[in-house]
Structures are given as C-alpha cells and as structure tokens.
C-alpha cells in the first residue's frame, strides 16, 4: 500500500496576516486559503528563531537552535546534523529540496560550503544524498551567486540578470537603496519576465522532479520559495496588481512619530537605538538605513510589493498542486505550508528583522492539509505550536517513529489533541554577536502571554525584558515587564522558560560568515 506523500512548502519571511485565511485582505491567496479550509489552520505557530538559518535548521532537524547549534545567521549547520529528510529517505522516500536551502552561509567566495558547491556539479549530490535529500535545486533572492537558479539564468537568460536588485551594496552591507516610487529600501523595478522569476522557477523545477517519479513512489518534497523576503523586486509586469497608493497602513504603524517613539521607548533600549540608527545588532537589516526615516508611503509600497510576491507564490503553488492531481496523487498527499519567520512591515516604524520577539516576526502562517485518504477533518488550532514540531509531523505522516533527537512532537490536529499532548508553550531564542554587539534573548509564549528575557549583552544588563498580553494588547504596544500587577505572571512565565531550556550543542559552533 502506498504511503502518504508529503509536499512541504515554505516561503521566506512571510507574515501571518498576509494570507486571506488568516484575515489578510491585501494579497489574494485562494490556493492556500483552500488548503486551510479543508485542512488544519494554526493561529499561534511560532519559529524558534526569527532569522533564516537557525529557523530552517530547526525545520530540518526538529531541534532548537541551541541544540542544533546554528545560533545565528552565518553559523553553518554541520553537514552530518540530524535531518528528517534522511529519516524519510532511509524509510524509502524519494526526497528533494527545491528552492532556498540556507543551512549554510551564502557569502562564500571560497566556495567551501556544500550547498554552494553542489550547483556546480548538477542536482544529485555525490554520495547519493545531502542532508537526506537525493535531489537538490537551489535558488535564493537574487540572480547572482553559485546556486542553480543563478546558473540557469546565466545560461539561458543572461540579459535579465542585471535587472534584479543588488541585495548587497559596494561595502557588502545589506543594501539600503531603493528605486521604487517612494525610495523605500530594497524596493526595485525588475523587468524580468514573470516566467523567469525565481518563484515560478521553483514551481517549474518542482513539477519537473515530480514528473520524474513513478506513480507508486513515496516522496517528500521541500519546495522552498525565496519570496516574499526582501528585496521587493517582483516582476514589474505584476506590480500593477496592487496600487500601493491604495494600501492601508498596518495597525501596528502609527503615523505620529511621537506615538511610535513612546511605544518603543517602553521596550528594551536596543529598539530605540536601532530606530534612531545608532545601533545595528545584526546583519539582516541595512546598516545604512535609519528606521526613523521610514515614511507612510514607503510602508505602503513595501506592503504592496510584498503582497504581489505572496500572490505569485500562491499561484505557483496552485500549479504544483494541479500537477499532483494530474498524476493521480491528489488523495494521498499531505500539504504543509509555512515560512521560516515573519517580518516587520511598518510595525513600530520598522522594517526587516532582528532581536524583536513580537507577532510581526513570530506569528507565522502554518497550514496542514492531511492527505484526504487519511480522513482528517478541518480544524483551527489555537494552541501554541512551533516549527520544531514539523519534523515529527513528517515522521508521523510517513508512519515512522519520531526519533529521540527531535525535540518537538507531531502537530496537533485539534485543540483537544493539543491539550491532551500538552502543547502549552512555544519557545523562541535569539543570539547574535557581530562586530562587538551581542544580543541574547529567550522568549516563551504561553497562555495568551509572550514573555522575553534579555540576557547580559552589549546593550542589556540582564534585567530587561518584555511582557505582553496578547489578548488585550495584540499589537504588543504595552510592555508589562515592570508592571507590578503582572509580576506573578511574569515570574511564572520566566520560571517555565528557564525550566524548559534545551541542551546546548557542544562545542559551540563558530560564526563563519555574515549570512
């Protein structure tokens, strides 16, 4: 009897509220909305890190960043790290990773990281598998670099390469420039035809791989779209879908600068320092961009382009699902859709990401449609779950025992299931040490509260924190950390947070590149 096949769809840096099924109104996402309507939609899914490499390593290993060791972007996941793909492959599944990997740094002039080198040699890794994947075709946000998408563009359509945004500037910093209508950073007019853009390329290559399989094969495909992560340079032919002038400002953005500043002044001080351009704690945001200069129109333009990218992903996913139906697999495929982390898209007057554990970055879209043959019923789960629970979920779908090294558990199918299996809390962590600036945060989300404790670092003395009541303060604008009325709540959450810290990877892995 054939086993359930698994299509694991990830995007990069996509907010919860960008999907129609989650209440989003800007982007039209009928494909994911339909998956959610007939599957399980999670309302409180959090990453274990709010940047790419640690978060993706968590999805692959089923471990916390502290344990798998990728404690910040630029720290490579060891090639022999545990991998759910390897578990599935050993069980007889065909396995593929198509799109953005980012388990290892991209900035690699020495070409010493396997994922950057693999594209030079085709799509099948030497030795048969890489991290458990037998087929690899990689892409990232740009047309530059050594990955398969860039090589394909160079070979087939070199004339469009120059139309993509340059993610890094001449100083190799994340680029602060923008040439859209508003001057917003990382907004760019890209004349690339839609069919040559990486979103459609990822879908095309996924379809090609699926077409290479036999009708009775079991398969696990991680289809990993690089968008809607910045740069916001979707094909210009599609930008007109959404007129940025008509885009409403997000509820987390106040047009009153004094109001914005009052809100962030109530948070640990790295918030305000970044807002004023006095401290850049991490490489993921442009060092030369000062958030305080962000204008309402820039927020509108960024959100419009981000929504266009979300629509393109939705349509690309629709093509892949149609092909799956054509192959006759429609009843036997589990589809899981999520992302690695969210994004500040005007919230608090900020863009991009960093050590800011609020819903903009932590509340993720997560939808799981079990194979129809499994007979599951549609549900909405409000209990907290994490990306750490994905790997055990894939094992369960495949009918395999969850390995002991995985630290999560298979996703609940209902809230009652979540209660029964003690889905009480979800943990998120941040560590960064870059050019003399260190920030270390541990966060727990439980019982409708989110609590972040800052360990001693360059700008924190170990006493600061954030505490938000998600029901009364969904925008996390009122930090209750020092509110005496919330003291017992805070202390209880902190005790739970420290009691549940995962074991650390030994030895500590080194930072080897910026990203």
């Amino acid at each position: 009897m054939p086993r359930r096949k698994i299509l694991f769809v990830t995007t990069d840096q996509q907010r919860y509220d960008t999907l129609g099924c989650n209440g989003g109104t800007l982007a039209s996402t009928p494909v994911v909305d339909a998956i959610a309507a007939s599957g399980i939609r999670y309302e409180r899914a959090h990453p274990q890190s709010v940047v790419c490499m640690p978060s993706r390593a968590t999805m692959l290993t089923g471990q916390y960043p502290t344990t798998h060791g990728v404690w910040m972007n630029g720290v490579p996941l060891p090639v022999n790290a545990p991998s759910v793909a390897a578990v599935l492959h050993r069980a007889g599944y065909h396995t593929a990773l198509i799109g953005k990997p980012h388990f290892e740094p991209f900035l690699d002039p020495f070409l010493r990281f396997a994922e950057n080198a693999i594209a030079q040699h085709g799509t099948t890794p030497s030795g048969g598998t890489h991290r458990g994947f037998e087929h690899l075709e990689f892409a990232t946000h740009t047309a530059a670099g050594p990955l398969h998408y860039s090589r394909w563009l160079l070979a087939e359509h070199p004339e469009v390469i120059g139309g993509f945004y340059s993610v890094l500037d001449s100083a190799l910093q994340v680029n602060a420039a923008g040439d859209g209508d508003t001057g917003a950073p990382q907004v760019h007019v890209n004349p690339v035809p839609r069919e040559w853009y990486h979103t459609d390329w990822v879908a095309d290559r996924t379809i090609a791989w699926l077409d290479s399989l036999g009708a009775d094969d079991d398969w696990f495909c991680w289809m990993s779209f690089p968008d809607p992560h910045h740069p916001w340079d979707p094909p210009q032919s599609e930008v007109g879908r959404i007129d940025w002038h008509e885009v409403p400002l997000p509820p987390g953005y106040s047009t009153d600068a004094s109001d914005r500043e009052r809100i962030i002044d109530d948070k640990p001080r790295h918030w305000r320092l970044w807002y004023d351009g006095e401290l850049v704690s991490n490489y993921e945001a442009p060092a030369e961009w000062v958030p305080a200069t962000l204008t309402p129109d820039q927020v509108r333009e960024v959100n419009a382009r981000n929504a266009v990218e979300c629509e393109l992903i939705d349509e690309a996913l629709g093509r892949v699902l149609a092909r799956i139906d054509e192959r006759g697999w429609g009843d036997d495929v589990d589809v899981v859709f999520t992302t690695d982390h969210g994004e500040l898209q005007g919230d608090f007057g900020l863009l991009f990401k960093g050590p800011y554990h609020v819903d903009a970055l932590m509340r993720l879209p997560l939808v799981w449609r079990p194979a129809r043959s499994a007979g599951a019923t549609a549900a909405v789960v409000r209990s907290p779950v994490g990306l750490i629970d994905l790997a055990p979920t894939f094992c369960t779908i495949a009918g395999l025992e969850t390995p002991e090294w995985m630290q999560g558990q298979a996703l609940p199918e209902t809230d009652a299931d979540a209660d029964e299996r003690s889905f009480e809390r979800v943990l998120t962590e941040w560590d960064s040490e870059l050019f003399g600036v260190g920030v270390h945060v541990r966060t727990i989300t439980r019982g409708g509260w989110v609590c972040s404790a800052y360990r001693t670092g360059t700008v924190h003395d170990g006493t600061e924190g954030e505490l938000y009541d998600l029901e009364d303060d969904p925008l996390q604008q009122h930090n209750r950390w020092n509110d005496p009325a919330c003291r017992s709540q805070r202390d209880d959450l902190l005790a739970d947070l420290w009691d549940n810290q995962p074991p650390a990877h030994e030895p500590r892995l080194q930072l080897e590149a910026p990203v």
Partner: protein
Amino acid sequence: MARGSVRREVRIKRPADEVWAIVGDPARVQEWFTGIDSSTVDGTTCVVTTGSGLPMPEEIVTNDPIQRRFQYRITAGMFNEHLSTIDVVDLGDGTSLVTYAADADPGTMALIIAGAAGSALLELRDRLEVQEEPR
C-alpha cells in the same frame, strides 16, 4: 561600520615550530585552508585561487620566524583595506596557540576571511594532532 576586525584562534597539541613550519609557508596554505585550491608565491607576492575560481592576489607584509608571525594584505579590488595576521604562540608545554585576525574595510570581508580561517584552523589542528596519534 566600515572597518571590521575579527579574530579566531585554536589550541594545537603540537610544538610551535612544527605548527609554524606549515603556517609560515604561504606556498602550503592550500594544505590546511579549506576553500583555497592553490597558491603561487613570488617573493613577497602571492596569488591564491579560491574554490570558486577567484584569484586573490596578496602582498606578504611580515614573515617573521622568530616571533612566528605572518601578515598579508589582499590587494584585490573588493577591499578598501585589509590586513590579516597569523600568530603561532608557544604555550611552553609542547602545545601552541594559533590566532588568525582579519582587519578589513569593508568590515564584512573581515568576517568572511576570519570565518573561513576559523574553520581552517580547526582543519590545521585536526591534521597536526592526527599525525601525533600513535599507530
């Protein structure tokens, strides 16, 4: 932040002179620095070729066997300024401390160089310490 300074280090259970014999010879860098495929030395100039095929011309600034200090500058266009310094320190107990510091503008390149060097130092340690193990 234009300029960056990043250091990596490793302790190796081998005498400093033995470590220096490799580290102080720029013609042997590809033996321990993963990502460098070849090196050509001509006096105080050296050209290494990276795994991506990128030639990286270097100027050897210091090669001091007494202090066991090696310094070089990458003179390729991606740097406004660069100086890397490798020191092999005799710890007096038959072991060595090797430090690799990269200073560069743009600062991102300091992290890229030192990040790769950190991995290379571990490779150097493993290579030398394995040689020591009894058969």
